[in-house]
């Protein structure tokens, strides 16, 4: 019995550790904001954190397959721009267009990585230029308009329901479903050992392309969420999400070399980074310190991770 318990705990070490950290942060947070656990506050905060959570899920998907996506921020901005530009003609159509744009840019990244024989870093870095340009063509100046009813319902609750929370839960359920399919299994296999996966009959190229496309869907949803939260679009807003999505994934224990990691840990880690950034504002420091904090979190997270795993394997 106790053996099974420690076994379960070890398997979820990252989730448990992050959960504990999150509790500490929430306690500190409620010290500054006594209304933290009211529905209104939860709705607003979840609307604010949704883009990073979904972007981090996208980055984790790519990293699980052994890749990396440096164009994530540009794709997020592209989805946001497409949605903001088309939202007045019908939110559903705009959302579908934005998702299609994000998924196809993701698939294009995947094709380049799978067939070009170029490392993902350089492909996605060059692609970030390309998608950044497309975003500027769609939306040269910050603008666009999201219907105010939707913005209000999203940020302040809709019949008492926190829509962003529902979206995150729905995406997690979707991920759970994907995990149980053949593709979900292949994703971990390709990331863990590409040669082995290929030798056991997995179409590694197709899996990679599908992974980047799925990441595109997640990132597209993040961009739509950001557009609804802010009520408009901005072509240059995406850049910080690239770094923060990598930081969240690393913090969650998703390996840089692929094949290792859990999506629920990624969600917790993204929440953690979001809360940390907000806490920084409460302490009265200038928001300029945010970038320093984010960079430092990334270095500390990965250094701790590296030393922890080295102890276990050596």
């Amino acid at each position, binding site marked *: 019995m106790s053996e099974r318990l420690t076994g379960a705990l070890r398997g979820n070490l990252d989730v448990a550790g992050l959960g504990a950290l999150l509790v500490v942060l929430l306690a500190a947070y409620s010290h500054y904001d006594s209304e933290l656990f009211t529905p209104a506050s939860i709705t607003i905060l979840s609307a604010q954190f949704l883009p990073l959570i979904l972007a981090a899920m996208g980055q984790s998907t790519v990293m699980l397959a052994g890749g*990396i996506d440096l164009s994530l921020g540009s794709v997020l901005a592209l989805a946001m721009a497409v949605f903001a530009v088309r939202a007045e003609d019908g939110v559903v159509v705009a959302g579908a267009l934005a998702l299609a744009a994000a998924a196809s840019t993701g698939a294009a990244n995947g094709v*380049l990585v799978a067939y*070009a*024989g*170029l*490392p993902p*870093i*350089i*492909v996605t*870095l*060059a*692609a*970030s*230029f*390309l*998608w*950044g*340009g*497309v*975003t*500027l*063509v*769609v939306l*040269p100046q910050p603008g666009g308009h999201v219907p105010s009813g939707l913005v209000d319902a999203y940020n302040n609750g809709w019949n008492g329901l926190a829509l962003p929370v529902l979206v995150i839960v729905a995406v997690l359920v979707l991920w759970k479903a994907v995990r149980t399919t053949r593709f979900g299994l292949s994703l971990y296999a390709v990331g863990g050992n*590409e*040669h082995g996966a290929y030798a056991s009959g997995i179409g590694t190229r197709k899996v990679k392309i599908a992974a980047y496309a799925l990441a595109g869907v997640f990132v597209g949803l993040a961009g739509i969420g950001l557009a609804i939260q802010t009520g408009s679009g901005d072509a240059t807003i995406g850049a910080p999400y690239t*770094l923060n999505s*990598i930081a969240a994934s*690393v913090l969650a224990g998703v390996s*840089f070399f692929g094949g290792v990691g859990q999506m629920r840990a990624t969600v917790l880690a993204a929440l953690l980074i979001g809360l940390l950034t907000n806490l920084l504002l409460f302490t009265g420091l*200038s928001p*300029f*310190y*945010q*970038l*320093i*904090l*984010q*960079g*430092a979190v*990334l*270095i500390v997270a*990965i*250094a701790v991770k*590296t*030393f922890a795993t*080295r102890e276990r394997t050596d």
Partner: protein
Amino acid sequence: MTAITLPRGLRDNRAAWAFGVLLVTWIGAILFAKGFDSVSSVRYLVQTAAFLGIVGVGQTLVVMMSGIDLSVSGVVALSAVVCAQVASGSGGTTGVVVALVASVLVGIANAAGVTWLRVPPMVMTLATGTIVAGALLVYTNGSPKSAKVPLLASLANDRVVGIPLAFLLWLGITAVAVWLLHASRIGRYVFALGNGERASRASGVPLARTAFVAYGACSLLAGVAGLVLLGFTSTSSLTMGNPYQLLSIASVVLGGTSILGGRGHVLGTVAGALMLTLLTALLASWNISEGVRQIVLGLLIIGLLLAYARERRS
């Protein structure tokens, strides 16, 4: 194909290929575009290519040991902003010295993270780049100064027997880098690490010392480029380094150096930087919007990478 009839040495020499492609592109530009056939246009081109080229030479050192430096964009801005800030208070020379010291410190931090904390180079340099960007925001309070530093202005704009001084500086730096990488002991270590870290460490190659030299030199050169840019424009901005992140890596790879490290030549990077600057100038001569220009440049870079920088792995 004509390539088959060429002597084997030339066929395998990717740096020579880079100069060949550059020559063809340049002739094409002279024949089909306006304003590329005068001496002054050549002069302007090599002068502006020097900014990218200096960063590219540093990037080559890091890429050759299978690292990557994504913090160069931050360091270019760092040195220009710090120099402008310090120079307005305590004189140009002090500004230059402080800026270069600050730049080298970033390189030392990168090398320390990569060797001692064992953080993957991409993540480490992405994080330090972000921290530098944040630190600059805090340092300047969001509004960096402009400054006329006579020394830098003449370095960037003056000519010696008709040749821009910036170009001569670039050539001098390249000559030192050729010696460092292709004739010195450290250079042999860099190539060894690029071809296989485990094996070279096992045979006594000092990883730490090599990494400190390579990352330190890369940051120093990014700092130098920032100073020349400051001299050229007389203003500093927080985002002035941004284009150099992708373009410096692209110039290295287009110059025939393997992005995985261990193969290539510094001289190839000179061709790569000249080619990218030529392409940018060609695009600027067309009357197209910023977004479309970025798309075309992104596609061109991806196309060029596909054409002759592919790695045959597995």
